[in-house]
């Protein structure tokens, strides 16, 4: 059941230059029954000139405390205003949105998690979930611009962590796939979130390896609930809902089997 709920900020901090972590607590009784890694929520700013929720992926969910953590880059005025919130402030949230990663397909496998930049945060919840499934093995390869790392401590808790930086200051110089090749990482499946050029490369890599790749796509969104058809991606086959070769990223996605989308 999707809802628009007023959440309370319980923690807000900068993790790296321009990257913020915000924890939002659910009001009593409004908690979602299930949250899957890779799902997202729409966060509203308190600026009345901005109508649309910002789609932000869930970094961590703690059903015990009712706290949901979001890690985002303050890229524009909307996310900057979210970053300016303080503990105790209220933030309206539309959630929980999207399909998330299908853990059944990943259970018992050696799973390679690839995160690029602000595509890293959802990989933390995914790594944690996979770590809790017996027989599943997690190798996380995360790509950063430079030595301004974030979420590395969290990721290390749930599996092996390799790092790539564009400037070579830490780990492999280059992108996540450079790090995968340099370290000879092999896997049974890949899960990835990051910029489009990275996802295209991941699709090619998975094809070469003969393993499935589940990629999380991003697009400008309006409603977030599948009504407006703003955020579509081209699909290989006719989509069951739209009946054309377009699937809604907010509803059928954001996670797709790379072989099912044309990117």
């Amino acid at each position, binding site marked *: 059941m999707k809802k628009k709920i007023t959440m309370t900020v319980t923690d807000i901090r900068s993790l790296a230059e321009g990257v913020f972590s915000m924890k939002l607590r659910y009001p009593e009784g409004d908690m979602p029954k299930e949250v899957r890694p890779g799902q997202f929520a729409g966060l509203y700013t308190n600026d009345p000139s901005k*109508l649309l929720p910002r789609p932000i992926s869930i970094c961590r969910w703690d059903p015990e405390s009712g706290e949901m953590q979001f890690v985002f880059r303050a890229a524009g005025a909307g996310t900057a205003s979210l970053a300016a919130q303080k503990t105790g402030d209220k933030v309206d949230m539309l959630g929980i949105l999207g399909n998330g990663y299908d853990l059944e397909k990943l259970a018992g496998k050696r799973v390679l998690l690839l995160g690029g930049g602000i595509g890293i945060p959802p990989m933390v919840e995914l790594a944690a979930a996979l770590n809790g499934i017996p027989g599943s093995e997690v190798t996380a390869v995360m790509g950063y611009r430079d030595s301004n790392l974030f979420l590395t401590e969290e990721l290390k808790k749930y599996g092996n962590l390799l790092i790539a930086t564009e400037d070579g200051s830490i780990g492999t110089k280059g992108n996540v796939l450079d790090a995968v090749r340099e370290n000879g990482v092999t896997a049974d499946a890949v899960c990835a979130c990051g910029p489009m050029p990275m996802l295209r490369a991941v699709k090619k890599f998975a094809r070469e390896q003969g393993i499935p790749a589940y990629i999380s796509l991003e697009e400008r969104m*309006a*409603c977030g609930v599948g*009504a407006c058809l703003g955020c579509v991606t081209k699909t290989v086959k006719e989509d069951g809902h*739209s009946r054309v070769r377009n699937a809604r990223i907010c509803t059928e996605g954001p996670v797709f089997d790379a072989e099912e989308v044309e990117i």
Partner: protein
Amino acid sequence: MREATCRVKPDMSVNIAGVELKNPVMTASGTFGSGMEYSEFVDLNHLGAVVTKGVANKPWEGNPTPRVAEVYGGMLNAIGLQNPGIDVFIERDLAFLKQFDTKVIVNVCGHTEEEYLEVVERLADEAADMLEINVSCPNVKQGAIQFGQDPKCLTDITAKIKKIARQPVIMKLTPNVTDIAEMARAAEAGGADAVSLINTITGMKIDIEKRSFVLANKTGGLSGPAIKPVAVRMVWQAAQAVKIPIIGMGGIASAEDAVEFMLAGASAVAVGAMNFHDPYLTQKVVDGMEQYLLRHNIQTVRELTGAVR
């Protein structure tokens, strides 16, 4: 307290071209899908009508992405009328809407006259209470915009649709014209049972860092509170020009906004882009309008229509 208990519940019903709506609040086409997605948030039984996303004779792919962009006080969209085509629409979307005690208004789109007529014909025996004809989408290149921007064409296509339509016909007008009153008169002359306005206003956003258009389609339709004063003005002008009922829309964000449209001359209203801001908004507008009537001791919502001259 005594005063409040003496008051009778105001009559919220309106009649548009012979169709009785339990209240004047509808959804604006394209902002509510076919109701399915928002039925998680709103009880569709409480709405005056659900106006569906535009449907054509065949499935349409729509425009490339990005299709939407946020702007100050509103948004731009250039979806390009992606839709699953009339067959799937009837089988799935109309079947879904039939379960609810609300009126169903099917928005019809096409590239050519023949395409519009084909959809209207297909809907003849279906559970649609009214048809809304989208002759005003700014994001579809072939045909559609000309129908809505040329009074002669508008009269002509209205007459042709009226000839075969079994349901009352609402012509949806574009604000991208010099004289909205002339366009409203043109629709009325063609036999339209009602007009709805405004559709989106053509706009553009440029990313100055990338030095490129934000929308893949370059231009898009502006909606949201930013356009409300223009919409209220146009509803008022149309109301002075025609006798047929007007369905007013454009940036409605509250019951107060809805009342404003009614006072300007609308007989019903539609909530559009602001559904994306608040998925519960349609219900809030219904409740708030009722409160307004109580507060002003007005017995029927119909008394609001055109009360400001």
